């Protein structure tokens, strides 16, 4: 008799056998809801529908393809987005997406979103009102203000495309003054310089893919500067070529710096000296492709290399090495930006950099103004101050503030929360509450871009399409519709065109040849940007250099306030997913901290998680300490988004607020802070977890004896290759994984207990000043240590080489995770809640895990399943590259390759055979299916 029969016999007597012998128990009795009328675009149940639109999490505006699923919500069919991916072929990001883009759904489904218009009552509390009422109030105030000859101001974040056009005509017709647009991360110095030098109020596109030597100064290319997705993609591509060298100068430490081939840390605000030196050397050595006019050249300070060494503190021989490699290359690209230009000498640095680009003949080659980003409508902080004065004099009666948070991000010293009260009525157009909306009198809830029609132009030669992927969840309207409504009500215009029609009319004009559906699918169309050649404007250049003379003072105890990878300028800091994912440098997830250099920490006896009192001038705050390798002595870093207000007030000549404060006072309060630091250690303790590439690859260990029967894989063995040379640690994969696999957000307390749930994590491993970032997930071992210890056979090796985890079979003994050397398994300590509407975004292909169940990466087995399904329909095998896990799909650096190891021609098989291939903890003979490609050693300080 078989075992099961025997158990049956035992079970016979139990009454349970009736209760369970049929699926129909009241618990799982469900409703079956039909459509009322079948939807016009045919939806295949269980299959995603992909709609093209544009990401609006930051002004870069990547094209995205949103997976929409048909779900039954409150007994109605509804199409809702469950996952966002980069839109292939889009000129901005070509199919890839950053961590913030991946998290966009958490804004759409955010619990705190404004659900209807609100008005501040006498007691300062907000009370919901109807749209009509809101409009009435606004119109009344506008009428009054107009009658007594005062202004109506319209302040918005950077606005482009259709909305910009509409806004202009609205302002002119309704008599509203459009204030200069406000972008906290506006690189004023750089744009200002390129205006002075080349007459362009633009940020050029830096064609890293065309250069062979990259010198970046302060520009955080991988976090926020320019187009991070594009940058990291191009850098990775260049690296694969091998000959590419990248030197990064930064006074602090950033993800970008740690990824550069060589990272040099000059003294704060002394970067200009290096560029000035290179500039004059270019001319002296006669290597200049375009010689600079004397009038300009004489404004460039003449520095000996010793002088540069003294100013910057960078040793002479490094400078010489830099100089050599700079001259060795024939297409050296220099980029200045970020914290280096947002500084006292930043304007000067930017100007010098422009000149160097010009002199090395890169303007028009690697510095491309034909595809530049137009910043003409964005105002510097200086420009902002000018209208604030008007506000003080009460000359601005009504103030619209749209899509920006000046109170939270502008210099604290501006006292915005007092000065905004000067206006009779402040109208906020926003989706989430922030410091600014807290001060508004009327709040008009703006639809999320996934609920909106629209068009933006990320670059002056590209117009990107926005189309709604779901009906608005709440009573929100798009900004375009709000403007049109006000326009109509104010001027009593008869024609009732809504923003959708407005935009589509524009598209028909723009792409008369192409019909709308294809345009919607493609997601963008190119507009003809003027191509007049760039020429140097001598006098203006000279004037700029003269006006922005550098100061040669060196300051001490400097705290930098750079923007962060996760929260940009702070606009994303309310998104739960981004808080859950740790910052790759410090691997801290929740909370605020100050990065302290190793030396300083030793000097002041500071340990991680010590609470520090940070004071600068009269400004003071309590903040946790996190020791940051690679940070120079006397320099500290606090991400600007971790502060409620921007403490810096001083502006540089270009009118850009400085990115740092000097003279910081730092002392321990003695208290400890529960700061969730997720990585166990900042170093791999020479265990070869990061195996740097050596030409002669000696195998670290003898091939070991097999204790178990080797698994035989017949058709597929799924495997992954991760190129550590390409990986920048940008953590986009982590966000993608969370969204794809319904991974719960457990919050700070659980993180402090070390109970994070991420299936894939970025481990930073520091060796001295350098760092490598290692994406770690379940290695799908062939000799998996977790498998033999599972008492209930919930985890096992499946015929396709996956280390399967059957959730409903798991009883949560946690032996498997104890036995996993990669710490890749996660345990559900609780039943996690998915409140509406957050639950709408759940992926129906992945089951929710409940309390007491172990979970982990499955190589996105549901994607494998659907690919096999498709292949089966066509009676073929799955093609190489047909299965793409969420992490690989989004990786901007294309570092992750997935495929079938049994197919010798597959990309992954080739990489696994390559000389750089190695496995983490190879000596354990776990035979992982994940192969890492070892990175080249960084050159270091």
């Amino acid at each position: 008799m078989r075992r099961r029969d025997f158990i049956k016999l035992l079970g016979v007597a139990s009454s349970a056998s009736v209760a369970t012998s049929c699926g129909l128990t009241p618990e799982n009795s469900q409703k079956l809801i039909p459509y009322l009328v079948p939807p016009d675009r045919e939806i295949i149940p269980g299959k995603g529908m992909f709609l093209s639109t544009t990401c609006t999490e930051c002004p870069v505006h990547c094209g995205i393809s949103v997976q929409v699923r048909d779900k039954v919500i409150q007994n109605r069919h509804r199409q809702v987005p469950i996952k966002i991916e980069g839109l292939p072929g889009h000129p901005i990001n070509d199919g890839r997406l950053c961590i913030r883009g991946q998290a966009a759904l958490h804004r759409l489904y955010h619990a705190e979103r404004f659900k209807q218009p609100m008005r501040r009552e006498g007691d300062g509390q907000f009370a919901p009102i109807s749209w009509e009422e809101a409009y009435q109030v606004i119109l009344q105030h506008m009428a009054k203000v107009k009658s007594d000859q005062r202004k109506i101001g319209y302040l918005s974040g950077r606005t482009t495309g259709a909305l910009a056009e509409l806004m202009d005509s609205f302002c002119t017709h309704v008599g509203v003054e459009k204030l200069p647009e406000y972008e906290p991360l506006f690189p004023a110095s750089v744009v200002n310089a390129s205006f002075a030098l080349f007459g362009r109020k633009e940020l050029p596109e830096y064609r890293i893919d065309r250069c062979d030597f990259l010198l970046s100064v302060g520009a955080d290319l991988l976090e926020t500067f320019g187009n991070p997705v594009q940058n990291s993609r191009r850098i990775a591509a260049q690296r694969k070529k091998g000959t590419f060298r990248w030197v990064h100068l930064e006074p602090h430490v950033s993800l970008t710096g740690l990824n550069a081939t060589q990272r040099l840390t000059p003294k704060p605000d002394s970067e200009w000296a290096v560029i000035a030196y290179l500039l004059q050397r270019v001319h002296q050595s006669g290597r200049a492709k375009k010689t600079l006019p004397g009038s300009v050249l004489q404004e460039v300070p003449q520095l000996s290399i010793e002088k540069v060494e003294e100013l910057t503190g960078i040793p002479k021989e490094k400078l010489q090495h830099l100089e050599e490699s700079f001259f060795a290359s024939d297409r050296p690209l220099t980029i200045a930006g970020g914290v280096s230009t947002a500084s006292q000498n930043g304007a000067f640095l930017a100007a010098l950099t422009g000149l160097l680009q010009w002199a090395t003949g890169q303007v028009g080659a690697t510095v491309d103004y034909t595809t530049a980003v137009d910043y003409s409508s964005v105002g510097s902080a200086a420009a902002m101050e000018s209208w604030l004065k008007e506000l003080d004099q009460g000359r601005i009666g009504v103030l619209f503030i749209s899509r920006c948070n000046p109170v939270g991000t502008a210099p604290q010293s501006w006292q915005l929360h007092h000065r905004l009260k000067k206006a009779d009525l402040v109208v906020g157009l926003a989706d989430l509450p922030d410091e600014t909306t807290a001060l508004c009198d009327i709040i008009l809830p703006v639809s999320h871009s996934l609920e909106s029609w629209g068009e933006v132009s990320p670059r002056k030669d590209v117009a990107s399409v926005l189309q709604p992927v779901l009906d608005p969840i709440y009573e929100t309207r798009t900004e375009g519709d709000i403007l049109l409504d006000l326009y109509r009500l104010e001027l009593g215009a008869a024609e009732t065109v809504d923003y959708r029609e407005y935009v589509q009319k524009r598209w028909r004009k723009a792409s008369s040849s192409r019909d709308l559906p294809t345009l919607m699918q493609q997601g963008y169309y190119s507009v003809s940007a003027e191509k007049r050649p760039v020429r140097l404007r001598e006098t203006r250049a000279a004037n700029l250099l003269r006006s922005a003379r550098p100061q040669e003072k060196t300051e001490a105890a400097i705290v930098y306030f750079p923007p962060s990878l996760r929260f940009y300028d702070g606009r994303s800091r309310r998104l739960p997913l981004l808080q859950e994912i740790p910052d790759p440098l410090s691997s801290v997830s929740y909370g605020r901290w100050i990065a302290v250099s190793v030396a300083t920490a030793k000097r002041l006896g500071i340990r991680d998680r010590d609470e520090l009192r940070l004071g600068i001038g009269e400004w003071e705050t309590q903040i946790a300490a996190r020791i940051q390798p690679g940070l120079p002595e006397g320099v500290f870093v606090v991400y600007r988004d971790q502060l409620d207000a921007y403490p810096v007030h001083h502006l540089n000549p270009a009118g850009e607020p400085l990115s740092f404060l000097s003279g910081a006072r730092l002392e321990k309060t003695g208290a400890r802070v529960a700061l969730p630091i997720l990585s166990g250690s900042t170093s791999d303790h020479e265990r070869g977890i990061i195996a740097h590439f050596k030409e002669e690859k000696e195998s670290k260990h003898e091939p070991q004896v097999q204790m178990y029967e080797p698994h035989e894989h017949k058709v597929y063995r799924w495997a992954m290759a991760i190129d550590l040379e390409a990986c920048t640690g940008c953590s986009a994969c982590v966000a993608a994984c969370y969204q794809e696999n319904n991974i719960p957000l457990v919050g700070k307390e659980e993180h402090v207990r070390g109970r994070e749930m991420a299936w894939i994590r970025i481990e930073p491993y520091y060796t001295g000043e350098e760092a490598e970032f290692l994406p770690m997930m379940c290695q799908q071992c062939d000799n998996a240590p977790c498998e033999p210890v599972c008492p209930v056979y919930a985890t096992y090796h499946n015929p396709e080489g996956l280390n399967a985890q059957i959730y409903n079979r798991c009883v949560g003994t946690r032996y498997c995770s104890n036995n996993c050397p990669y710490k890749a398994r996660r345990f559900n300590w609780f039943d996690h809640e998915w409140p509406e509407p957050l639950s709408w975004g759940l992926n129906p292909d992945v089951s929710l895990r409940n309390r007491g169940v172990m979970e982990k990466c499955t190589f996105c087995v549901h994607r494998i399943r659907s690919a096999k399904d498709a292949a089966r329909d066509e009676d073929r095998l799955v093609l190489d590259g047909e299965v793409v896990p969420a992490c690989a799909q989004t990786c901007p650096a294309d570092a992750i390759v997935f495929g079938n190891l049994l197919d010798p021609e597959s990309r992954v098989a080739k990489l696994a055979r390559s000389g750089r291939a190695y496995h983490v903890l190879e000596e354990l003979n776990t035979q992982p299916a994940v192969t890492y490609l070892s990175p080249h050693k960084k050159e270091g300080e």
Partner: protein
Amino acid sequence: MAVKRWIVPSIFFVFLSGLALVLLGQNLLWKRVYRQPEQPIAFSHEIHVGKLNLKCTTCHTTVEKSIRAGVPAVATCMSCHKAVAADRPQVQKLREFWEKKEPIPWEKIHNLPPHVYFSHKRHIQAGIDCATCHGEVRVMPEIRQVRSLKMGWCVDCHRAKAAPLDCYTCHK
């Protein structure tokens, strides 16, 4: 003596009536577990499939091309029932739903646990007859579950048909 004569029979009685009670209790349990839920409209497959010979795919349109068979839209029902049998009470119920613009909240009979991935398409393409799992609906005045739909049963069939037995085939 008289008492003594009744002791044993009364023991019998108590024992047996105890058993009878157990049975009746069991009946309640069975009722609770195995109740056929009341459908909002008493739709008869017997008429539509048995008498009118409509194909399953006429209403369950996606059964051949997706994981779910799909329940017909109310509009689909109305396409015929505007005119056909419009006087019948059940059809009038349908009309009410249609006029109220409300979808019909059918009670789901064939439920699988949420962690199961089941593709109708695959099984249809493998030539499995609908009746294998749903029974002979053409003789069911009201649809009812006639298969346990339990894992053991699925596996039996997968074994017999040499279909894949890897857990990931069905578990998600």
